[in-house]
């Protein structure tokens, strides 16, 4: 953490990963109903959904833990 400011680098990381998690999970869910014309290998694993969820969980942990609060 950096003492100069009230916002930690970990908060920025949390915010970005949370946003990415939401977008990628949503894209993965959308693929269930509208599969791409050229699906990737092992598309049956639905990597977008669970990898997006991983990003979302990691992001939320950092986002909440390091959310700037007034002391």
């Amino acid at each position, binding site marked *: 953490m950096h003492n100069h*400011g009230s916002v930690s680098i970990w908060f*920025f990381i949390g915010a970005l990963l949370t946003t990415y998690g939401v*977008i990628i999970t949503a894209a993965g869910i959308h693929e269930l109903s509208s599969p791409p014309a050229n699906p*990737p*290998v*092992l598309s049956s694993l639905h*990597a977008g959904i669970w990898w997006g969820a991983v990003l979302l969980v990691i992001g939320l942990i950092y986002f909440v833990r390091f959310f700037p609060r007034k002391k």
Partner: protein
Amino acid sequence: MPLNGPAQLPSLFAAVTPSEKLLSLSPVDIAIIVLYFAMVLGIGWYLKRFTKTGEDFFLAGRDMTAWIAGLSFVAANLGALELMGWAASAYQYGILATHWYWIGAIPAMLFLGIVMMPFYYISKTHSVPGYLQLRFGESARGLSAICFAIMTILMSGINMYSMALVMKIILGWDIHFSIWVSSLTVAVYVVMGGLLSAIFNEVLQFFLIWLGALLISIIGLTETGGWHGMVQRIVERFPGQDFTHLWAGLGSFTSNPMGIQWTGIVFGLGFVISFGYWTTDFLVVQRVLSARDLRSAKMAPIIGSAFKMAVPFIVILPGLLGLAVLPERLVGESQAGPGVHTYNEVLPLMLARYCGPGLLGLGITALIAGFMSGMAGNVSAFATVWTYDIYRAFIRKEASDKHYVDMGRWCTILGVLVSIGTAYLVMQFLSIMDYVQALFSIFIAPLFGTVLLGMLWKRATPAAGFWGLLAGTLSSIAMFLWVEVDHSALRFIALSSHAKDMAENMYRALWSWIICVVVTVLVSVMTKPKPETELAGLVYGATEVPSDGHLPLYQRPIFWAGVVFAVFIILNIIFW
């Protein structure tokens, strides 16, 4: 050939004229990339208010925790070309490429943390040339600062050009668009927040690189049925070739695809080149100098080494998986043609193989993040060395702190513009790329000799520091030119006419280091040393290094260095 990061980067796609793009991005992928750019610029804008003094701008206020300094230390080295170049090397040479991450990095990083960092930190130097000035005087500082500044900025331009070409090949992006957008973004956030901004963004980029690239390894291993399934497929597809053993094939120059022998790996790579890069290249050392206290400064390289040891999982493994699963055979640049993919394309091919919309954007963002972290490292290190070790030392000695901060900001912009100019120059004259990469490695090995003797030997004199560094550097250039003019000279430089480029680099570094050390010792014996009182804080035996003995075991840097080293040994045995 690529080494540990910017020290020697691959000539990616040097001779390729792309006919079609490899990947197509969806709107979701574009949104992910745009969000990334917005975030790095936002961080730079936010941090601008905290960057007032020279200490803030050039050393991030010396306030970084061990974790931030350690992650930044690794991220500055984890460029996009590093990712793509080493994945390509893994496809070409197999697991041998892992040596550049393990023996070619871990011992040196631990040595930096435990042995050298106390002297860098206690001396309160702001740079590696700055340490040389304190230890050996202005001549040694001037020589190393000028060489470093020139090489760093040229390397930055080469990286920029290579990255733009990568984006053209993978995504069909216009080269000029890639060069200007990515480099100006880096310029804006480094100008605003200095090293603080560079470090914060490097930590963010570190996460993105891992999360963007890790998925390839996970799905790849799922497809092959695990490590053993992957090895079995490689053996079946490439009978008679050993791609999966680290040391077993290094008995001679001809028994492995790299054309190198174990002595080159252990002494050339594992000792001289690795130690030279990780302990004296200011690009990486600067990150550790930003640590808030000595313990953090010692822990940062140790934390970095643990992550460095894991990087093969996202870089080397995708290359090996490519050997196992890609239906086509990839070829070298010289054999490339329409519809034929090269080694350098293995990572994007694997990305395309496994990643759908969204994940593809994340993977491309990882590559862009890698490029930007490498470039920010180059320009922030250049700004510091130029401002403190050239401008303040030789051009304007007395000026206000604000003046030097302004100079740092201006020369960040200047550095980026020179890099862009270099990128366009390389576009016209591709051979420049090889020479600049060689020059960078040429300079690093003797510099390590000078710094090492300076830190560990009280008798080393100021004159010896300069002449040793000069002799080592010149001899390295001479050996490089000798082989360029007469290729048969390889049998003298690399001890075998069967040696390949990689082996030549290893042995040239070893000889130049030896020459530097011998000249430094001889000149030291013949000249007058500094009085011991002037060596306090700079040299082993004349410096009181604070002990960690009062700390519990789990807080001591030496304990964690031991843990990392033990894992390093175990990994080498497992993959022997």
